[in-house]
């Protein structure tokens, strides 16, 4: 698990730019995770460019969640390395990765139910040196929960909880946001609220990695898509190509379309 000597992670991004003006912000190198005999992530070289909005799709058990948890540090890889914005993340604790600029919204809303909406946002803000009151106001505005600032978070609807958690995740001023199924179980209106929120953050330059099953939503927010299957990358490219791809249709979209 040591840092390879030939990669000077502090000086430059671990992976060279893929061409043009794009710059890689996240890269995994031969990343493998085994659970006993099961290989959940199999030798994956995956990268995301700065400022990109990438969706990660694939059938259940494809290894999407495992890949996310390897990036956030909830899981440690069996083999391979993860580089992010000049850091070698591989041996970092989750909180150190958040300090490096990653933030995550879990699949099911993880919020502090007994605290008020505003207090939920204060928790992450307490340890940053940002202007707490100003960020608080801006964030409440952004997630459209200003009127419910003093309500207990447990009283929010499912969609509001999801928005609140995204709000909490952006208060730590990340460079890279991971969203695990942000619109699962949401109504059409709630889904389009989230899409707008993601778009506006993306317009401000935030890089996103979004795992999602809802293909309509993926089409709406994303241009670049990676398809995982059985722990490996099956296809990668623009959304139109992916949707036209016969093998992707057969193993994934077929069951969804």
């Amino acid at each position, binding site marked *: 698990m040591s840092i390879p000597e030939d990669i000077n992670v502090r000086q430059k991004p671990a992976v060279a730019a893929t061409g043009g003006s794009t710059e890689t912000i996240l890269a995994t190198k031969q990343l493998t995770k085994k659970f006993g005999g099961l290989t959940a992530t199999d030798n994956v070289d995956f990268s995301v460019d700065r400022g990109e909005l990438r969706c990660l799709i694939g059938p259940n058990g494809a290894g999407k969640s495992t890949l996310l948890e390897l990036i956030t540090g909830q899981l440690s890889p069996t083999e391979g390395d993860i580089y992010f914005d000049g850091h070698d993340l591989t041996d970092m*604790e989750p*909180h150190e990765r*958040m300090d490096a600029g990653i*933030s995550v919204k*879990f699949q099911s809303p993880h919020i502090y139910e007994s*605290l008020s909406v505003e207090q939920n946002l204060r*928790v992450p803000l*307490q*340890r940053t040196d940002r202007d707490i009151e100003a960020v608080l106001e801006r964030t409440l505005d952004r997630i459209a929960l200003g009127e419910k600032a003093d309500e207990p978070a447990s009283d929010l609807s499912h969609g509001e909880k999801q928005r609140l958690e995204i709000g*909490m995740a952006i208060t730590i001023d990340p460079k890279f946001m991971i969203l695990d199924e942000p619109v699962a179980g949401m109504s059409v209106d709630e889904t389009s609220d989230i899409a707008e929120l993601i778009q506006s953050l993306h317009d401000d330059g935030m890089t996103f990695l979004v795992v999602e099953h809802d293909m309509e939503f993926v089409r709406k927010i994303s241009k670049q898509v990676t398809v995982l299957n059985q722990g490996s990358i099956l296809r990668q490219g623009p959304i139109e190509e992916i949707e036209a791809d016969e093998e992707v249709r057969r193993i994934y979209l077929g069951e969804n379309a």
Partner: protein
Amino acid sequence: MMDVSLPSRLEGIADKLNGPNTLGNSPAFWAAFAAGMVLMLAYPLVQGSYAAGQFSLFLVYGLLALSLSLIWGYTGILSFGQVAFFGVAGYTYAIVSLNLGGAFGQTVALPIAVAVATVSAFVLGYFMFYGGVRDVYVAILTLVVTLVLETFMAQTAGAEWAIGSVQLGGFNGIPGIQNFALGVGGASISLSGSGFYWFVLAVLLLTYLGARMLVNGKYGYALVAIREDEERTAMLGYNVKKVKLAVFTLSGALAGFSGVLYATWGNYMDPSVFTITFATIPIVWVTLGGRESLLGAIFGTIIIERLRLWFSVNASEFAIVFVGVILMTSVLLLPRGILPGIRDIYVFVDEHGVGEGIDRGRETVQARVRTLLDSVGVDVSETKTPTGSEEVTE
């Protein structure tokens, strides 16, 4: 800083004391608190030195309860080990103070004893939290450590178990610990009766105010956040293991201080402080008073201990049974504890009026009693349902 006027400086302190993580923040609360403190201060003058000496044990226990409220109520880590740190500090104090002798020996023994408890908590906490021990396993592990200490200390009878000139004494423990004293030779003070009472009261007051500042300060949000959702909190950049270790160590130190005061109060230390009964009692205090309330923890302690004393005089064999009944009743009626319960009632009555408050209270009590009776298989539903027996088996 010098030109800051006193009122505004006091306001600054008040700002630090008040916050969302303590229940009482209003001027009314502080007025009641001050009145309560005056009564507490006057207690020895009214009841006499002997009664004050008796009562000071409850305050010593209050400090132990406060340590549990911080780690369990605020941080969500159920520690059965508070009595272990309590006992370790008590034993250390006994050994050091009796070896060195005199007020000077006691003065040196105090920081050493608290330090030993603190280091013990740090070491145990380090292995638990950095070793990935979580949730109920923390409770099990801390209880096991406590029971191992009981077994170990209980077999230290015999001349070979001596540290310096002090015999550990097995089940009989170490007698002859002096009353609490600080200072050197002629310039020392020894505290007992009313003096000890006031000293412990001051310690408890300062610790309580300090704990309020902690939970309402920058760290307080981290504690509550860890209690509510550990994973989320780590993923917002908090070093959860470190915070947990820090709170566990701090609460071990407080429990240790409490243990030192206990040793000087009773003038002896024995392994009974490591028994499962004694390990459970702090959890009873804190549950009864309200574990998410610092003052509630102290309240619960005084109520339970006062009753235990009364029962042990009047119906000794049933004391612990009565305590159990009181705990069950209070959990049934005020599941969050007495003080948070009183506050909830106050808020409700304030908003909805007394009449509705009484109605609501009656409904709540009826519903809870019915649920309880239902769960033990007594059918109390007004409309008899034939499927009642099946519901019970669920």
